[in-house]
């Protein structure tokens, strides 16, 4: 029983939780090698064959979906076509910056500023626009949190005298704890050594 009690106590320490999570995730992913995995070719979000657009020399390969602005729609599939009336019409639309970059570089599609979340992202996600909004919301929240912390610097503990006192106290306590832990492990090692020599 004491072993289970020790295990529960280890679970209550936040420091061990990421390790436990990584272990469980790793085991599950290793078990995944046993699962038969195959791509269902009947996809609604199809992609061109690898390298086919590169070989054709398209500047925004591999994201070219055809179509001409205000003239003809490109190729896009939708789960619910009745919800996407103008399907394919914005496939070729790009911002002026993207147009300029496309003229300069033949490898624009594979560059970092093109995708994902880049200048040609919008044209790919006409049917899944809500996802694009959420993705940028996540990014925005991350920036809000980081910039708020950077501006206010809430962990600046060099100003308050009380804070410094508390920090010193805590440092002493933790160094005491570490020293006693070291001593304990030393004693254990010595005992082990003594047992071995006794044999």
């Amino acid at each position, binding site marked *: 029983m004491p072993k289970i009690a020790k295990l529960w106590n280890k679970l209550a320490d936040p420091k061990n939780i*990421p390790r436990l*999570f990584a272990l469980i995730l790793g085991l599950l992913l290793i078990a995944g090698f046993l*699962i038969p995995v195959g791509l269902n070719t009947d*996809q609604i979000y199809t992609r061109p064959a690898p390298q086919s657009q590169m070989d054709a020399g398209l500047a925004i390969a591999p994201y070219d979906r055809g179509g001409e602005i205000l003239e003809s729609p490109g190729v896009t599939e939708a*789960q619910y076509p009745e919800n996407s009336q103008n399907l394919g019409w914005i496939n070729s639309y790009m911002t002026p910056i993207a147009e300029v970059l496309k003229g300069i570089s033949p490898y624009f599609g594979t560059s970092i500023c093109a995708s994902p979340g880049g200048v040609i992202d919008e044209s790919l996600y006409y049917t899944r*626009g809500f*996802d694009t909004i959420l993705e940028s*919301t996540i990014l925005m929240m991350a920036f809000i949190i980081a910039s*708020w912390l950077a501006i206010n610097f809430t962990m600046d503990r060099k100003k308050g005298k009380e804070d410094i006192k508390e920090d010193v106290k805590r440092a002493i306590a933790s160094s005491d704890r570490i020293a006693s832990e070291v001593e304990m492990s030393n004693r254990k090692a010595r005992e082990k050594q003594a047992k071995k020599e006794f044999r």
Partner: protein
Amino acid sequence: MLIEDLGGSIMGTIPLGDIVLYLNPLHIFLFVTILVFTALIAISRTETQVEAMFGSLDENKVAVGKKEFKQRRFLAIICGLATAGAMITGDLFNFTLFMALIGIVNIGIVSAVKQVDVLNSAYQYGLIAMMCGLPLFGGAAMILAATGTLSLFELATIPASPMMIFGALVMLIGVCGESGIAPFFASKAEMFRTPGSPFILIIHLSSLFIIVRFVEILLTIL
């Protein structure tokens, strides 16, 4: 299992392109409840913890500053809205995005506190949330690869294959880690030990609702 068997008959849909939000009695109940809680949180003030001092009759008040209060209230409202969105979404990938948003906002709510222990556990939770990106989006991608669609209406009619079950399991691990249920509760539970009660509570509430909704999604697609 069909959607009608789980949450009652569908009362309407909100089409946003391929992402169709759908409403049935269960979802409407969850959606309205979390919105009411978010409204209550938006108009409430934070608690002030009073600590008795040792060796004297004085007391020590641990309050939340005004700037910090505003920041936390904003993030708590965003967290409530994201949870509400996850309640009615009808798309698997959309759900994982809401989940990721909740995770990052949860860290944000406690990021401004001054207790070192709380910050330490928030850091550990952040590590888990970062790792959860792989199982959440990877699981959704595996289900997409196995079936060719992400819409819950379509997934409900497709019989489960081993690859789908594996994808759903991977997603389950992701949701467990991100919402901090057992055995991963310790880092998230330690995050609550700070003043500012109503905003801290939304962290807890969002995990509860997400778990209920994810179990429903699992039953739908498998």
